[in-house]
């Protein structure tokens, strides 16, 4: 509970600074600090348990099926990182209060910062690895927002995008690695993964897991060759750099090395990849740092170098190495965060970050200079400061590895070299900025000390550097012991935090590094000139080039696929469907199944032949649209007959009535469209379409044949058995529609009603040119409403309505029902429109079809709701038999009311469509299509 609260507090706290923004900057900062402060108090309350070596766990099941649980753990390592995150976070909030200008949206800044803080706490306190990856990606996202905080600046936008691409991409790789890790260990819970270390290292997939996880680590912790995003992330406001890019986020990578140390470390592969990457990063970072003229650039490359050092220590595969690495994590966080803050103060007061212009600051801001100098000396590893202690441990560990054979000396040698550069750039930070003559052409002159409280965070951190450096045993020792033993997962090796270990080789290496560093700094001018002569080495260019290539590639694919031609899309769609069906049919040993074929009878064969022929003629004459349409109607009628032939009278009736309505509709539409289709497809396209059509036809035929000749099991037995007893009807098809699957039908009539309304909306305000003659130039018949048709149709109407009532009533027990009755009614009404015109019909039959369709859906829905009144599930039907005088016994079911809804919807929607289409060009009374 406490653990969940520690993580949740910053997330909840996001809202506070946003709300307090109007109350002023100090109020905003205080509001932002409340949640981390509370979380810090909670964390410290657990100190006793953690330092005693116990682990606190909390677990809530989330998605146990995939092994994702909300399980958290707090051990020494998590405690150390949570302390850094919350402690430095609070200092950064105080610092940012003075750093941000008045007009900048401070509430938003703190909201982002708290978001990041919560995500980071989630990473270090997660017990479940999947959960950790989720928080890991959240840190990438929130750091994107923070780096790009000054979104009007190009470098901020580009820098944040680059950081997101690289750390986010690494996160994906980490996810893959963690999935494999969970697969091998059988669980995503960290305790079980760490316990399965031996099995993991022995597993065949171990190299894959290791590389995937390390990709995540190296991208996040800016290791070579992924280091280049960090200097570009310096476009962020300096509080962000101090917080994310020195103390916390970039440490997430090395945190993971410490966390998974018992599971992954200890192999040769681990040594070679991790230590050599760390070594290269350390050296490159240290060299590059010296050549930066930008204050923050120097610190960024220095951070890269120190992260390389920590990585190298983990890679050495010694327990002492891991202890030294964790110690250096603490020390680096304190001195680097204070240095970034000092750099921010200088930037803030001078308006520049260029060390060639900022000189002699000692005179203008002695207090800040003092603080920055102490921190820089800690960075250089000068005795009595914390950097010295971990650096000594580092040097002695580099001497304790024997993996490179006759090149064993290389690691300590390179470490000393990097140490020398580290001294050199630290000297430069001190000498170039605070001494070295007078400032040159500063935007803000003369600079002066910053506001009092802006220096407080720096003072606290520098004080800690001194405290740890002078009395390590009384300050950092228990914290380090707790963290290191949690990381190593067992007993700690012997180590001493004393300042004086006697005159030994590590101390000599320190001397050599210091002397070398001073020497390098003394000869810096020729070195700078040499560096300026080098071709610009910026990984950003390569990265940008990669991005451009990638975007071009995607654009090419998009351009090929998205041509804007519907025909093209459709062809692609059909071709893919063909491929999929072919792949699925492929494994079938033979097309024909075991069921015996039924004998061919002449009449049916003739009917099917007519159907096929009519279908073909529809295509062959498709340029003559009317001919084609007539042939289409032949197909439809033959389909109705086929339903009747194969014992489906309901379908035959439905198909027949729908066919009539469809053809009337298409006729109406054809009136407004060209009567003929021009030849315009190229030969290639015709060929392509021909092949696709034949392919689809063959595939459907094969599929149908394969299914038809195989035995099958149906679930219809249930419907047949329960139709009379449960649904009270003998017509099983109708009972399925209105009872068993009534909810589906409800959805269906809703769609129908929506289609009707949609069509009404599309026709609203549409004006089309009304042709005065047909395709051959003959003008339309002047007699719009032939007398015979009009007279006959009027006689037909009552009969048709009577029939539809009949069909409706018998529907539950004999072929018929709401759908069919509705269609018959529609046909009868449409006939009136055709024969006598819209005006005539509507003045005599003032029906509102919108309301009718709506009422239908409503009635059907209310019938369903009605069953709730009797405490039955939605759409449960009831039925009973009633004796009606003269007619006899009749069965009435609530399903019939539902069917009435279906009926009304069908009539309403159909007429909504056709009647509106009919009066489309009715510009003045009497001029109408129907």
């Amino acid at each position, binding site marked *: 509970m406490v653990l969940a609260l520690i993580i949740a507090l910053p997330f909840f706290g996001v809202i506070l600074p946003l709300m307090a923004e109007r109350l002023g900057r100090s109020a905003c900062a205080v509001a932002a600090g409340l949640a981390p402060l509370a979380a810090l108090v909670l964390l410290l309350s657990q100190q006793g348990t953690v330092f005693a070596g116990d682990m606190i766990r909390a677990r809530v099941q989330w998605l146990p099926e995939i092994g994702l649980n909300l399980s958290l753990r707090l051990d020494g390592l998590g405690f150390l990182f949570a302390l850094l995150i919350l402690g430095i976070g609070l200092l950064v909030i105080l610092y940012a209060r003075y750093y941000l200008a008045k007009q900048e949206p401070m509430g938003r800044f703190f909201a982002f910062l708290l978001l990041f803080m919560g995500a980071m706490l989630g990473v270090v306190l997660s017990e479940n690895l999947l959960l950790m990856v989720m928080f890991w990606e959240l840190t990438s996202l929130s750091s994107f927002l923070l780096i790009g905080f000054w979104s009007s600046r190009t470098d901020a936008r580009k820098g944040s995008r680059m950081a997101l691409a690289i750390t986010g991409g690494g996160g994906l790789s980490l996810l893959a690695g963690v999935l494999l890790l969970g697969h091998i260990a059988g669980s995503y819970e960290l305790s079980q993964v760490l316990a399965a270390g031996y099995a993991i290292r022995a597993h065949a997939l171990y190299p894959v897991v290791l590389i995937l996880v390390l990709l995540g680590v190296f991208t996040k912790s800016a290791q070579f060759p992924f280091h280049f995003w960090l200097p570009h992330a310096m476009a962020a406001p300096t509080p962000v750099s101090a917080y994310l890019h020195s103390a916390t986020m970039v440490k997430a990578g090395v945190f993971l090395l410490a966390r998974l140390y018992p599971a992954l470390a200890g192999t040769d592969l681990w040594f070679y990849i991790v230590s050599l990457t760390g070594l290269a990063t350390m050296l490159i970072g240290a060299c590059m740092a010296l050549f930066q003229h930008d204050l923050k650039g120097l610190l960024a490359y220095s951070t890269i170098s120190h992260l390389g050092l920590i990585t190298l220590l983990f890679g050495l595969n010694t327990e002492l190495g891991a202890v030294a690495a964790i110690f250096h994590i603490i020390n680096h966080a304190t001195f680097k965060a204070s240095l970034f803050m000092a750099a921010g103060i200088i930037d803030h007061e001078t308006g520049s970050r260029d060390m060639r212009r900022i000189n002699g600051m000692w005179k203008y801001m002695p207090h800040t200079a003092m603080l920055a100098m102490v921190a820089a000396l800690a960075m250089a590893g000068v005795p009595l400061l914390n950097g010295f202690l971990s650096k000594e441990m580092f040097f002695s560990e580099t001497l304790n590895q024997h993996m490179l054979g006759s090149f064993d000396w290389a690691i300590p040698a390179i470490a000393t070299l990097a140490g020398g550069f580290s001294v050199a750039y630290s000297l430069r930070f001190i000498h170039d900025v605070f001494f070295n003559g007078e400032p040159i052409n500063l935007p803000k002159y003369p600079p002066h000390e910053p506001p009092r409280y802006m220096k407080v965070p720096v003072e606290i951190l520098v004080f800690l550097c001194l405290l740890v450096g002078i009395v390590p045993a009384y300050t950092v020792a228990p914290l380090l012991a707790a963290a290191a033993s949690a990381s190593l997962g067992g007993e700690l090796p012997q180590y001493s935090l004393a300042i004086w270990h006697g005159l030994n080789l590590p101390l000599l290496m320190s001397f050599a590094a210091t002397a070398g560093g001073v020497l390098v700094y003394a000869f810096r001018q020729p070195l700078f000139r040499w560096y300026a002569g080098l071709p610009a080495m910026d990984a950003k260019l390569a990265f940008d080039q990669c991005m451009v290539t990638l975007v071009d590639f995607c654009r090419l694919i998009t351009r090929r696929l998205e041509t804007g031609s519907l025909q093209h899309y459709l062809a692609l769609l059909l071709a893919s469907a063909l491929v999929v069906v072919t792949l699925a049919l492929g494994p079938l040993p033979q097309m024909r199944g075991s069921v015996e074929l039924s004998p061919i009878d002449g009449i049916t064969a003739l009917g099917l032949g007519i159907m096929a022929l009519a279908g073909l003629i529809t295509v062959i004459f498709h340029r003559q649209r009317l001919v084609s349409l007539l042939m289409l109607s032949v197909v439809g009628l033959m389909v109705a007959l086929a339903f009747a032939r194969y014992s489906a009278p*309901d379908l035959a009736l439905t198909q027949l009535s729908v066919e009539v309505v469809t053809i009337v509709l298409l006729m109406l539409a054809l009136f407004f469209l060209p009567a003929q289709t021009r030849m315009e497809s190229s030969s290639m396209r015709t060929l392509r379409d021909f092949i696709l*059509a034949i392919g689809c036809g063959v595939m459907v*035929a094969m599929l149908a044949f394969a299914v038809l000749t195989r035995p099958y099991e149906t679930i219809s037995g249930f419907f047949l058995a329960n139709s009379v007893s449960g649904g009270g009807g003998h017509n099983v098809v109708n009972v*399925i529609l209105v009872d068993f699957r009534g909810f589906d*039908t409800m959805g269906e009539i809703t769609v129908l009603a929506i289609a009707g309304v949609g069509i009404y909306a599309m026709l609203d305000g549409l004006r089309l040119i009304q042709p005065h003659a047909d395709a051959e130039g003959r003008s339309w018949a002047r007699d719009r409403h032939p007398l015979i048709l009009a007279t006959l149709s009027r006689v037909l109407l009552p009969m048709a309505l009577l029939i539809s009532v009949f069909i409706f009533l018998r529907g539950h027990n004999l072929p018929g029902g709401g759908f069919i009755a509705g269609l018959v009614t529609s046909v009868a009404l449409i006939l009136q429109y055709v024969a006598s015109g819209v005006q005539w019909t509507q003045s005599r039959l003032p029906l509102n079809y919108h309301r009718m369709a709506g009422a239908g859906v409503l009635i059907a829905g209310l019938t369903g709701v009605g069953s709730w009144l009797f405490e039955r599930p939605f759409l449960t039907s009831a039925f009973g038999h009633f004796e009606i005088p003269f007619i006899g016994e009749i069965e009435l079911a609530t399903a019939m009311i539902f069917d009435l809804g279906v009926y009304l919807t069908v009539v309403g929607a159909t007429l909504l469509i056709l009647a509106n289409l009919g009066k489309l060009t009715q510009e003045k009374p009497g001029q109408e299509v129907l």
Partner: protein
Amino acid sequence: MEALFAAVLGILTASGVYLLLRARTFPVVMGLTLISYAVNLFLFAMGRLQTGVASVISENGKYGDPLPQALVLTAIVIGFAMTAFVVVLALRSVGETDTDHVDGQETKP
């Protein structure tokens, strides 16, 4: 009979697909209608081709499969709604763009 039935389904589908790929709206609508015929018959045939069986509960014990029939019945009605919608969409497209090309503009020469 099954082979013939399957072949006819194939012909209807092929005709429908060819029309579906035309450049003008009206043939496309007709192609769509042809394909709905084929699909409805196909779905119906999932209950197998049964001759002379009862469709309502009666003394005679043999019935056709009512489930595909119920499905196809609604499919026919919905198919009509869809055809109507597409037709009116085509008309609206002519009204807005003065062409019955499916892309809403004549192909460039």
